[in-house]
Each structure stands twice: as structure tokens, then as C-alpha cells.
């Protein structure tokens, strides 16, 4: 048989053309999805502002005039016997948000996993992606049910607010509803057609469906984000709440993009933690070594997704809080210096818990490799740094003091611990925690490899230098700019701090890929060889994340205080008060428990669909 260059046959060319066509189609879909809500280009906007103002004035004259925001009294809020309207809306909104975050996140990483599967032709990835989507299908129904519940409770209990908002956002709400046809259609074909659309061209079609699903889902999120950010930082309305007619102005209000970025990244981290909990649950209930190995692998991947998204997340959150402060000093101070400041300490504790759980899972997982012993000796040092950074991270600025301690200190401020309570210390601490989590991950990856390149010692020395220089830079920026300059420098220094962390992570991973080129494997990874404790770390990850999101959701909503729409439409309902911290925490906890119960239902359904009972003697012969 003559071997040599294979002459391209007709089907190859067709295959190539379809690939290109589908890639272009996918790009068009993404582009369309992005430009529909659009991304702000500040310079362009500023230049267009004059023209836009004139247009708006002309429009206002030409189209129907809008009413100002209604001035409500307590009588305007319907009450249904015994039901606390605020708690109902709160719980529906939070449950909806948890599920929405999950069903938006899963398609993102399922898409990536499917691509990896297609590239490596390793069917395990495809099967795992399918299993993730299966779990999220029931979640999708629940998201819709809870969204409906939220909409109904808003209409029932806050009709005037809903009327006002739906007048301004009539177009986007209409498109939002229509988009659900697209979302459902794409999701169902994507899921139910998974095994049908296999191989060659069909697989590309399937992948494009996944991309479309993401585009539609992201658009839905962006639209909904506009409504809630409008309530915080209204735009497109005048001081009396009269709508200018410019829906786009109302949509891309000041806090829209910060929330978009934060929610997009946070959703991925959250979705990863929920499927991680699923994998942990299945691992603990697995009764064969193959199943154990499979779910161990799945848990590792889920934890990896969660960590990847968790690393940039503190910065997205910081950016959001900074923008809230820039928009309104009052909201900003209430958030971090006023009544909600204590909730941020709880947030700090939960975030630290997330980091500790994720690291613990990685350390437990090192036992899968026989070569882990070379790196496990470093774990205690990583733990010391992580715990120390965590302690700094959650140290409050205002301390809870007994009267004795108050007298001993001469006042409520502590001269040593006080400075740890403000943001430069927190930023420094979180950057260190992120770096060392990345380090744990690198040791995990190295555990099963033996480098064969000649320059391995020099390579490792460069890695040490990169980390040392990075940590020194983070400390310099945090301490010098944080405490020896002014506020502008202090806030500005957080940018190079973040970038230092990202550069060290990307740089060291890249360098490691060169050091370990052609590396020998110590042995095949023993998937399934991990203590059961580690699965509880995955549970802790999911539960902490959930509770944290609930807490942050309350804060974001609560800083509006007695406003439905800040400075424009006052909340005159009987429940328009900031509840005590304990009460709020209880509501969040109850909601979290309800959510966990629903999630267990979702996991159970995903499993039940594969079960078959053979009822002997039941059916007619």
C-alpha cells in the first residue's frame, strides 16, 4: 500500500467548509448577543452625549409623556393575611437567583469541557459534560418556577413599583420573555440531542448550540441585571422619575457593567461548586471502584472550575463595591462603614472558608499520586500563610470589646489591629491567599510528574524568584500605598496588586509547562484514592458559596434602604426598614436551607431518570 499525502476527498472539503461556516455563525451569534445589550465605550458615549440629549428632547416631545414616579403611602401596598410581603419577595428572589446562577454557569463550563473533549477525543469529557447538563435541566425548570413566583409576588405585593419599572423597561421585559423561547428550545435540543448529534459535522452543530445557549443565557442575565441596577443607580429618568424614553440609557446605568462582570464570574465559580457537591454526593454513594474513580475525577474538575473563577472574583467584587461608593457616598459608606459592615466580616469569613476548603481538597487529592511525597512537606507552610492571611482578611476595623478591654485600649480603636481592618490590608491578604491557592494547585499538578529537562534546577529557582518578587510587590503596594499615601493612591494601588497576582499565576503555570515538557509520569493517577473527608470539603464549598451569595444579595438590595428606586421612588411599605442583622441572617439561612432541599431534589431526579424497575407480574403478557 502506498502511503503519502492523502488526497482530500469531497467529504473532507465539505467538513472543512461546514466547520468554517459554523465558526462564522457562532461568531455572528456572539457578536449579536454582545452588541444587543452593548458594551459601554466611554469616549464614544461622551462625544455622543450632546447629540443624544437633543434626540431625547425631540423624542420626548414627539412620543407620549411619562408620569413621574408615584409617591406611595402604606395603603398602596396590598397585604394578604399573615404574609410578610418583603420576606416572600426576598426568598423568591434569592432562590431564583441561586438557581439562575447555576443554570447560567453550567453551560459555560460544559461548553469548554465539550471543546476539550472534541480536541482530545477523550469521551470521558463528553460524558462529564452531558452529566453536568443533565443536573442543570431540572434546575432550569426550578429557575423558571421561582422566576414566575418572583414576578407574581412583585405584582401582588408591590404593584405600583412593578408598574413603574415595567413602563420604563417594557421593551426589555418583552424581549426577555421572548428570549425564553430561544433558551428553552436551544437547551432542550442541546440536552436531548446530545447522543444524536455525535461525530464530525453533527458535533460541531452541537457545540454551536452550546455557544448559542450561552449567548442567550448571558443576554437574559444582562437584561435582568439592568432592572435591579436601575433601582440602585437610576438613569434615563429625571429627578422626579419621569422616564426620558431612552430605554438604553436606563439599561446601561452606572452599576450595570460592574454587576454584569461580577455576576458572570461569580456564576462560574458557584456553578462549579454546585456540580462539585453533586460529584461529592455521588462519590460518597458510589459502590464500585469505577464509579468512585469517575466521581472523584468529576469532583476534581468541578473544584478546578470553581477555583479558576474564584481567583479573579474578589477583584470583581471590589470593583463593584468601589463603583457603588463612587456612585453614592451614602450607599458606599452604609455598605462598608455603616450598618452592613458586620455582614462584610461574615462575608470575609465565608470567603476564607471557601479558600481553605478548596485548598484542603487539593491537598487531600495529592494522595492520588504516588509522587506526592516530594511536595507534601510544603503543605504546612502554605497552610500557615493561608491561615495568617485569612486572619488579616477578616479582622474587623471596629472590634467587639468588653468594657474592660475598652478601658485597657483607651477607646474602640486598636492601634495594631485597627490598620488591619481597612482595605489595603484586606487586598494584600486576599492577593496572598489567591497566590498560595494557585501554589497548592501547582504542587498538585507537579506531584505526578518528574521533570526531564536539563535546566530543571534553574527553572525551579526562577519559579521561586517569580513568587518571591510577586509577594514582595504585593506587600509593597499594600503597605506603602495603603498606609503612607492618600486615598486616591490607596485605591489605585489595588490595580497593580491584582495584576501582579495574575501575572505570577499565569507566568508560573506557563513556566511549569516548559519545565515539565516531556516529563515522565510517576504513575497513573489513582482516581478514587482520596479520603471521604475531602468530599465534605466540596460540600462546604457549595454551602458556603450559597450562604455567601444570599448574604451579598441581601446587602445589595438592602443598601437601597427606604428607596424602591434610589432618590426617585420611596418605599412606603410597612416593611421599609433595615432589619436587624440577626433577622436578616435568619432569613438568608432559611432560604439557603430551602435551596439545599431543592438541590437535593435536583440531584435525586438526575439519578432517578437512569433507574429502571422491572415489575414482575405487573404487565399483561
Amino acid at each position, binding site marked *: 500500500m502506498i502511503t503519502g499525502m492523502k488526497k482530500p476527498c469531497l467529504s473532507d472539503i465539505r467538513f472543512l467548509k461546514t466547520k468554517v461556516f459554523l465558526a462564522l455563525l457562532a461568531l455572528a451569534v456572539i457578536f449579536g448577543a454582545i452588541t444587543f445589550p452593548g458594551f459601554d465605550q466611554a469616549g464614544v458615549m461622551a462625544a455622543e452625549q450632546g447629540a443624544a440629549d437633543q434626540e431625547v428632547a425631540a423624542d420626548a416631545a414627539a412620543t407620549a409623556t411619562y408620569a413621574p414616579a408615584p409617591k406611595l403611602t402604606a395603603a398602596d401596598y396590598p397585604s394578604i393575611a399573615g404574609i410578610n410581603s418583603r420576606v416572600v419577595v426576598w426568598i423568591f428572589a434569592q432562590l431564583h437567583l441561586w438557581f439562575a446562577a447555576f443554570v447560567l454557569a453550567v453551560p459555560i463550563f460544559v461548553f469548554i469541557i465539550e471543546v476539550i473533549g472534541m480536541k482530545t477525543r477523550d469521551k470521558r469529557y463528553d460524558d462529564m459534560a452531558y452529566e453536568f447538563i443533565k443536573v442543570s435541566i431540572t434546575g432550569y425548570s426550578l429557575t423558571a418556577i421561582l422566576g414566575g413566583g418572583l414576578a407574581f409576588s412583585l405584582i401582588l405585593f408591590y404593584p405600583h413599583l412593578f408598574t413603574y419599572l415595567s413602563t420604563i423597561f417594557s421593551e426589555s421585559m418583552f424581549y426577555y420573555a421572548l428570549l425564553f423561547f430561544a433558551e428553552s428550545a436551544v437547551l432542550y435540543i442541546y440536552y436531548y440531542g446530545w447522543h444524536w448529534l455525535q461525530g464530525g459535522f453533527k458535533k460541531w452543530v452541537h457545540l454551536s448550540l452550546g455557544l448559542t445557549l450561552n449567548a442567550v443565557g448571558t443576554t437574559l442575565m444582562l437584561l435582568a441585571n439592568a432592572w435591579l441596577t436601575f433601582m440602585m443607580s437610576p438613569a434615563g429618568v429625571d429627578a422626579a422619575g419621569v422616564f426620558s424614553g431612552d430605554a438604553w440609557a436606563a439599561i446601561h446605568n452606572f452599576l450595570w457593567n460592574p454587576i454584569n462582570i461580577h455576576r458572570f464570574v461569580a456564576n462560574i465559580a458557584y456553578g462549579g461548586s454546585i456540580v462539585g457537591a453533586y460529584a461529592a454526593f455521588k462519590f460518597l454513594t458510589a459502590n464500585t471502584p469505577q464509579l468512585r474513580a469517575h466521581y472523584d475525577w468529576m469532583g476534581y474538575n468541578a473544584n478546578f472550575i470553581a477555583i479558576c473563577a474564584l481567583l479573579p472574583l474578589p477583584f470583581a467584587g471590589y470593583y463593584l463595591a468601589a463603583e457603588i461608593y463612587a456612585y453614592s*457616598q*451614602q450607599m458606599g459608606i452604609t455598605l462598608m462603614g*455603616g*450598618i452592613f459592615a458586620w455582614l462584610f466580616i461574615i462575608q470575609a469569613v465565608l470567603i476564607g472558608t471557601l479558600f481553605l476548603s478548596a485548598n484542603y481538597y487539593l491537598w487531600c487529592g495529592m*494522595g492520588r499520586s504516588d509522587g506526592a511525597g516530594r511536595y507534601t512537606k510544603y503543605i504546612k507552610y502554605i497552610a500557615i500563610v493561608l491561615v495568617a492571611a485569612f486572619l488579616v482578611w477578616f479582622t474587623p476595623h471596629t472590634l467587639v470589646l468588653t468594657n474592660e478591654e475598652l478601658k485597657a485600649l483607651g477607646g474602640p480603636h486598636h492601634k495594631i489591629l485597627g490598620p488591619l481592618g481597612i482595605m489595603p490590608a484586606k487586598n494584600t491578604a486576599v492577593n496572598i491567599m489567591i497566590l498560595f491557592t494557585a501554589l497548592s494547585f501547582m504542587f498538585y499538578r507537579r506531584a505526578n510528574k518528574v521533570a526531564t529537562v536539563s535546566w530543571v534546577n534553574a527553572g525551579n529557582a526562577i519559579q521561586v524568584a517569580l513568587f518571591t518578587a510577586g509577594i514582595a510587590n504585593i506587600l509593597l503596594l499594600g503597605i506603602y500605598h495603603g498606609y503612607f499615601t492618600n486615598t486616591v493612591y490607596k485605591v489605585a494601588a489595588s490595580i497593580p496588586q491584582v495584576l501582579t497576582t495574575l501575572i505570577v499565576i499565569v507566568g508560573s503555570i506557563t513556566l511549569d509547562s516548559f519545565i515539565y515538557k516531556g516529563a515522565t509520569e510517576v504513575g497513573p493517577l489513582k482516581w478514587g484514592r482520596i479520603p471521604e473527608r475531602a468530599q465534605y470539603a466540596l460540600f462546604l464549598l457549595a454551602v458556603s458559596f450559597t450562604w455567601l451569595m444570599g448574604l451579598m444579595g441581601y446587602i445589595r438590595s438592602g443598601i437601597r434602604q427606604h428607596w424602591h428606586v434610589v432618590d426617585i421612588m420611596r418605599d412606603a411599605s410597612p416593611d421599609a426598614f433595615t432589619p436587624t442583622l440577626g433577622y436578616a441572617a435568619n432569613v438568608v439561612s432559611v432560604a439557603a436551607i430551602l435551596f439545599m432541599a431543592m438541590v437535593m431534589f435536583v440531584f435525586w431526579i438526575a439519578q432517578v431518570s437512569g433507574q429502571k424497575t422491572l415489575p414482575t407480574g405487573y404487565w399483561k403478557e
Partner: protein
Amino acid sequence: MKIPKLLQAVLVLAFVYFGFIVVFDYILDAVIPSSLLAMYMFFVAAGVFMVFTYDEEGTRELVAPVKAMVEDPSKRLWRNVVFVILPLAVGGGTYMKMLPNFEAPLELRTIHPAPPSTAKIYGKRVNFLKLENPYRKIEKEDPEAFRELVNEGAAVYIENCQYCHGDKLDGNGPYAAGLNPTPLNFQDVGTIAQLQESYLFWRITTGGPGLPKEAAPWISSMPVWQDFLKEDEVWKVILFLYDYTGHRPRSWEHE
């Protein structure tokens, strides 16, 4: 001699705990609050647990003494002693915690209350989101005139504010020892350095009674200075506060 892992863990925890106390209470002479120490130790314990249990061997070694004490027939004497003492100790601790005492209850104050968006000051409605110090621009335009204004502000400060806030603006005025909460330390990076001038104007002119409802109870002794000082005097004092401490008011752009 190999120290058993359980003992190692206990020693580490004891070392850290007493370390905190020695360093803060004695060396640095700034006592570490018990509430904070409890939180710190909880997470140090979590960290110790994590380090000792990430592999099977370590966990087995850690748990072995406890397992032996509970299961090993030869340890019967120890077991009985511990099973009697432990509940007594826990019961005793609970009893001590539940005993009523004469200590005044803890108050969780909000140190940085949020300003309202508008307020009535000197008879006119002021919007804090837009309020600016009218004298701030003179700093660049006419440095000599600015110096004059700062000195006038200093005079106002010494005549009115230093009794509580101290002549060094560090919250250690003659009356400070009698006040709770203590007067704010302007030298600290966490006070005026983080705030806008409109915020200071609000706090000075409306004082303790002007604080918002959501963070009650307020026991601030800050007088309502709009009843005693003129508006321009308040702005000049603000200039002085920043000038003396070397802090800059919070702003969003570099000047």
C-alpha cells in the same frame, strides 16, 4: 523522640494562643480582644486540622490516642477518669458562662454612619452628594490666602474642638477620658483620610443628634456645631484638620 501527632496539634494551638496573648497584651501593650482571639483560634484550629488530616497516615496517627482511649481495653482507667472529668468540665464551663454578671452589655456601634443624601443645615437644604468645600480651590489659586484660612480654622479648633479631640488631633483631649465613645483620632488613617469633606461638614454641623436612625443607639457626645459656629468657620476647621494631619480628603481624581 517522636511527639505524637495529637500532642503536636495541641502544642501548636497552645503556642499560637499564648503567643497572641504575650505579644499583644504584654509586648505591644495593646490587649487583643477576646472576641477576636476566639475567632482567630477557631480558624487556626481549622488550619491545624487541615494540615494534620490531609493524608490517611497523618489522620490515623492523629486520631490513634483518642481511638485507643475509647476502644482499648487496657486504657480502662484513663477512659473512666476522662469520661467523668470531661462532662464535669463542660458543665462547669457552661455554668460559668450562664452566670449573670454585672458587666454592662456589649454595644456594637457603627463607627462610620452613612450620611443622608440631603439635610437642612443653617436653614437651607444641603445636598451631600454635590457639596464641596468652598475654600478648597483656594489651596491652588492663592496659597497665601489659603494659609490665612487654615490659621483661622486652627483658632476655631483650639477654642472649640481640642477639649475632646486633643491639641494633637489624636482624640486625646482633656475630656476624652470621660467620654464613651471616645473622640475620633484624626491622625488615624481610618478616619478623615477616608472621608469626603461633605461628610465632615455633616458630622460637625449636625453632631450626635444628627446621626441616622438605622444605627441607633447613639451615645455620641459630639455637639451640634451649627448652633455655635458659623458655616465658614466649619469649613475653615475642616481645612485645618486636613492640613495639620497631612491627610487628604477622599476624592476620585488626583489633584
